[in-house]
């Protein structure tokens, strides 16, 4: 196999990726009256709905945290992560016009999707921090680690999306499968429901769900000013390295086939 140029390409096209990510954020809702604000309205509505539903179902099981803050701090990273996967997975098919004609590495479109979502998460976090104070979160210097965790989460998203983007081009069925699999995925870990309802014996197994460690770490920084433990850092590193490696391998192997199919 020729030497992989994945990271070289990402560096080479960094300006293009970042510029277009920012652009996409601005114009995703182009044509609507309030444009960029739809990025906020969607999650706010979701938070309101879940808050109403869950405060009826589950009473006070969030270890004394406000459920709104508990939900928000988990839901926002999950939303942007899922978005990175969905957008990144579609990246090749959506940018087929470019890929058909330009000799640019296709992975930069996946990266663009991931960076777009990352920027969105940054915006969410900036808006979330004042809210956190309002709902009784305990903020401390650990918030400085939030950007790093956000980047790591979307690094994982990039790795996964890269695999999916390649596979989705070759097997269009995968796109349909993802459409119901991603919402289902969000229920396999405590995002909407409190983590206390999961039996203690099962809780360690949750880390097998790649994004869980990241989302949990972000959540507890906001809720309790608590840093993730060494083990959690190790788990996160493992997942990232694994998925970036796998993504790179899949991309290198399938790239020529993908180009032929597009």
């Amino acid at each position: 196999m020729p030497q992989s140029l994945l990271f070289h390409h990402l560096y080479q096209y960094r300006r293009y990726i970042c510029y277009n990510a920012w652009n996409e954020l601005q114009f995703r809702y182009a044509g609507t009256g309030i444009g960029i604000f739809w990025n906020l309205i969607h999650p706010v509505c979701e938070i309101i709905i879940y808050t109403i539903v869950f405060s009826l179902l589950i009473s006070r099981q969030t270890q004394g945290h406000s459920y709104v803050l508990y939900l928000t701090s988990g839901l926002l990273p999950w939303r942007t992560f899922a978005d990175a996967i969905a957008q990144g997975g579609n990246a090749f098919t959506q940018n087929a016009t470019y890929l058909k004609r330009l000799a640019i590495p296709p992975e930069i479109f996946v990266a663009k999707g991931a960076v777009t979502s990352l920027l969105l998460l940054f915006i969410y976090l900036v808006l979330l921090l004042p809210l956190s104070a309002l709902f009784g979160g305990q903020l401390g210097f650990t918030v400085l680690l939030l950007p790093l965790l956000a980047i790591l989460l979307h690094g994982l998203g990039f790795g996964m999306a890269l695999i999916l983007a390649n596979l989705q081009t070759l097997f269009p069925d995968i796109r349909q499968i993802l459409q119901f699999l991603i919402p289902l995925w969000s229920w396999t870990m405590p995002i909407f429901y409190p983590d206390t309802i999961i039996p203690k014996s099962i809780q360690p197994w949750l880390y097998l769900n790649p994004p869980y460690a990241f989302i949990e770490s972000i959540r507890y920084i906001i809720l309790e000013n608590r840093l993730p433990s060494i083990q959690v850092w190790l788990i996160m590193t493992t997942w990232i390295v694994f998925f970036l490696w796998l993504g790179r391998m899949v991309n290198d192997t399938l790239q020529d086939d993908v180009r032929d199919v597009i």
Partner: protein
Amino acid sequence: MSDVVLRVENLGKCFKIYRNPWDRAREWISPGQQYHHPFWSLRNVSFEVRRGEFLGIMGENGAGKSTLLKIITGVLKPTEGSYRLDGKVLSLLELGTDFNFELSGRANAIYSAELLGFPPGFVQSRLPEIEAFSELGEFFDRPMKLYSSGMKARLAFSLFAFLDCDVLILDEVLAVGDIFFQQRCYARLEELIKRQVTIIFVTHALDAVQQYCNEAILLHQGQKLFQGEPRAAIIKFHQLRTGHLDPASKVSAPAKPFITISETSKEFFWATDENFVAVDSPDAKSAQLVRYAICNGEGKLSNLFNQGEQAYLCCEFLVKEPIDVPIVTVLITNKFNTIVHGKATCHHNAIVPAVVSQGSCIRFSRRIAFNIAPNEYVLGFALTTMKSSDYARLEELPQVELSNYVKICDVYEQVGVFYIKHHYSLMNEHSHWGICNLPGDCQVQVLSPETDSKNAIG
């Protein structure tokens, strides 16, 4: 530094066609099994291009032109063979695909250049030239969503024409814009050629191929059918299109006469053998068209003429069954299938025999002045026949019933193609507007009320 900028050797590209996308996965898990149907879009193509050359690539749709160019630009990987490129290639196939319509033309020029791998800031120094060339005026600083499609193409061409590259690939883009912009495009291309830039031109505008290219390649079903002089390549292309060339034979047989005639009279214009184009028409009923020629005034094969230029049309029929009085008709049609001109030997009152025996050859020659609008035209020939008794009283026959007396032997509607180009001068008796030039002359007289005006200008 070698003079060859692009060397393509035995290039081939095979696409795997799967009936079901999951068949690909089946192939992965069971190595050695084949669930796809291979489709060779390109095979065994080899050629070289030197610096400063203008190469034309022609072919029908699906001949493999874009596959070839995509391989050269690096979008696709070849399945077999190799190519070597010394320098940077830019492809106008990419025309405007990377433009962001929310941004101004200026911003797009900057970002596109960066995406194409030019260092940031490189394009800044070229911006004034690009702006001036594109003639976009104030639109250059307006969002591109306000552009017309012609404006987009103009911006793209202007950008590409001022970026540095060793090989520039162009497609039909030059069909946009008005004639003046096109002229400036071609002038710019000539400038680039002088600076040793190689241009590869993929087009259906065959007159441009003939005028600008040094060499042309004809692709057919993924194979290189011909490489050489543009004029010959165009004729091959037309033969291919009209089904008069058997692609299997690759190099069509030289157009040899099948009857050697010792002497033709001086008055009878007949093109020399090397100026003829062979026609492959085996399924002819009674008159097989063997070869034809479109010659300029000097008797040389050509298919690009000035408005009003003198030309000769020749064709040769092999008679397969005995016929009566032969009538040969020339048919010139335009792209709307309108008959621009049709004239038979009887209109010229040409001397014709009363019968033609089987196996003889009919040679037809026509002197013609192309007093028609600049355009692309299709040339056709037809052979019809009439009983000599009817032919003698042609004048008296009722026009409406003429078809009852005429027997159509064979009609060849699409034999050749030729182009008529503009005269860039108005002071020429051959220039005119509209479909055709009508013979005549004119005079002008000005009568002013004060003086006895008898001094009109001729």
